[in-house]
């Protein structure tokens, strides 16, 4: 970690959309920010999504400019493939211990040309495509990755050395080891995002057994033009599906799996995916089985009505069980929620489980903030200070505090940045005077504007 300094104004943990927003908001105010991401690229889950609801804008087209802005901001130091091991209060600020995992390349010399990836002889399931597609043992995380640098997956390396021989810039260095560093920061923002509930959580749906029962994030990748198949196919045999079902509340509002809360986004992402599927596959039958449709955000109710109008079928019923036919089609046993309360069996080529959101990270032993009963960070003053945690000077933004959609995650991350800035002013942590910082940023903005013109 040759470039890392000893002191920053703020540490932002997590380089997804919320973490990037918080870092940019602080950076634009003139604070020096260390943005730490555990994965080899920033962008989080959003950069892998196909489109966003309700506008159907391309997700990576919104996310990628933010990623570039965060990576190139003069006040933001980006530290990818790095984990925060411990945060301790120290004086007015915090001492932070970091460990950077080895990429086995020199980040200064790698130009992201992909030649090493093409030379590598082994294919393994790609995490970015949720295992549906392949990558090599040495790889660029994805086409929109920032930094666009290779990383070696040591667990799957066959030690042939072909990548090193092929590299035109001779950037490989297999002698690298994990590096530790300690930095001092004035404030901390936790923006560690989400996971979805495990596919195995609801055994009766066969999420970890039946090949054609998919996760919603897997479906996002399958719908993406740069996804694992390049178009929508079913994973068991490559068939172009003619009938797809969405099972709502397949990982939320369910005490039996420890997720009693509503995840707030499942209705909308399912409607979005269902609507897009009708655009991608002519004549497709797509049915959404739901208990309630919760379309609470701006333009969401209109989007729901649009999806129904454009052919998405919505059936008020609870899916009790999914079984598999010989040809891998799926048979859904549905308890209809109507005056008759009958049970029906419906057959589909493919099923997507609308899984719920759970925390992307647990603080256990790393930082002394408390989590709530649901596992998300506790925000004891949520009404008037939604980013406040149980530790003074530590703030939370995005889904780390609870399930929410992208606009809300961005808004709360901005609020966390503002609260962190106030805290820095209060503790007089800043390394320069406020006036000097603001002039500095304005000067840089003027210089950037003159370059454009």
């Amino acid at each position, binding site marked *: 970690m*040759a*470039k890392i300094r000893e002191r920053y104004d703020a540490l932002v943990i997590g380089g997804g959309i919320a973490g990037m927003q918080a870092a940019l908001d602080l950076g634009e105010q003139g604070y020096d920010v260390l943005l730490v991401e555990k994965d080899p690229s920033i962008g989080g889950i959003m950069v892998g999504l196909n489109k966003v609801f309700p506008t159907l804008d391309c997700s990576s087209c919104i996310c990628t400019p933010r990623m570039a802005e965060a990576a190139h901001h003069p006040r933001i130091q980006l530290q990818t493939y790095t984990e925060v091991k411990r945060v301790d209060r120290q004086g007015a600020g915090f001492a932070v211990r970091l460990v950077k995992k080895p990429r086995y390349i020199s980040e200064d010399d790698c130009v992201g040309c992909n030649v090493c990836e093409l030379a590598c002889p*082994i*294919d393994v*399931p790609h995490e970015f495509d949720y295992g549906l597609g392949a990558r090599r043992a040495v790889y660029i995380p994805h086409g929109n990755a920032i930094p666009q640098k290779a990383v070696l997956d040591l667990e799957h390396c066959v030690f042939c050395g072909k990548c090193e021989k092929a590299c035109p810039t001779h950037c490989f260095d*297999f002698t690298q080891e994990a590096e530790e560093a300690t930095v001092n920061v004035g404030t901390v923002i936790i923006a560690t995002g989400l996971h979805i509930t495990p596919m195995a959580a609801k055994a009766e749906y066969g999420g970890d057994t039946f090949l054609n029962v998919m996760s919603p994030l897997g479906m996002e990748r399958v719908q993406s033009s740069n996804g694992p198949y390049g178009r929508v196919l079913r994973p068991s*045999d490559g068939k172009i599906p003619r009938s797809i079902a969405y099972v709502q509340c397949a990982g939320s509002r369910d005490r039996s799996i420890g997720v009693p809360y509503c995840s707030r986004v499942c209705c909308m992402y399912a409607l979005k995916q269902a609507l897009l599927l009708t655009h991608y596959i002519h004549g497709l039958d797509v049915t959404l089985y739901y208990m309630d449709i919760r379309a609470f955000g701006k333009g969401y109710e209109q989007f729901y009505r649009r999806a129904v109008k454009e052919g998405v079928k919505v059936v008020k019923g609870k899916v009790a069980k999914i079984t598999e036919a010989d040809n891998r089609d799926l048979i859904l046993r549905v308890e209809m929620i109507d005056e008759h309360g009958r049970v029906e069996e419906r057959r589909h080529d493919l099923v997507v489980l609308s899984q719920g959101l759970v925390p992307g990270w647990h603080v256990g032993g790393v930082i002394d903030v408390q989590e709530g009963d649901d596992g998300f960070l506790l925000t004891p003053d949520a009404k008037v200070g939604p980013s406040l945690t149980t530790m003074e000077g530590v703030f939370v933004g995005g889904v780390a505090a609870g399930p929410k959609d992208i606009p809300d995650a961005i808004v709360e991350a901005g609020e966390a940045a503002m609260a962190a800035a106030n805290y820095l002013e209060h503790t007089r942590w800043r390394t320069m005077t406020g006036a000097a910082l603001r002039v500095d940023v304005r000067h840089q903005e003027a210089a950037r504007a003159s370059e454009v013109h």
Partner: protein
Amino acid sequence: MSETPQAAKPAKPKNTIAVLRERHGGMTQDLKDYFKDQQRVRKLLREALKGGAMTIPQLAAACQLETHVTLWHVMAMRRYGEVAEGAEQNGYLLYTLKEG
């Protein structure tokens, strides 16, 4: 960041894969088996596709592989430029080997 002092760049070691291999004890038996099987499957798929365009079920039958395994391998070959996607046939896409 622009104000970061740049340390003198140390000389980069060359051909360091041997260091890594020695440090980590080489491939595990599981990985050796996985890699060997992958090479076997790819050889079967290439041979089958030399006969012309095929769908995933046709390829799977020709190579005596499961259809989902065939799909994963064909998609990996497609990603790295070995296979191209063709027209639709009875609800499935046809795949061909790319020339060169």
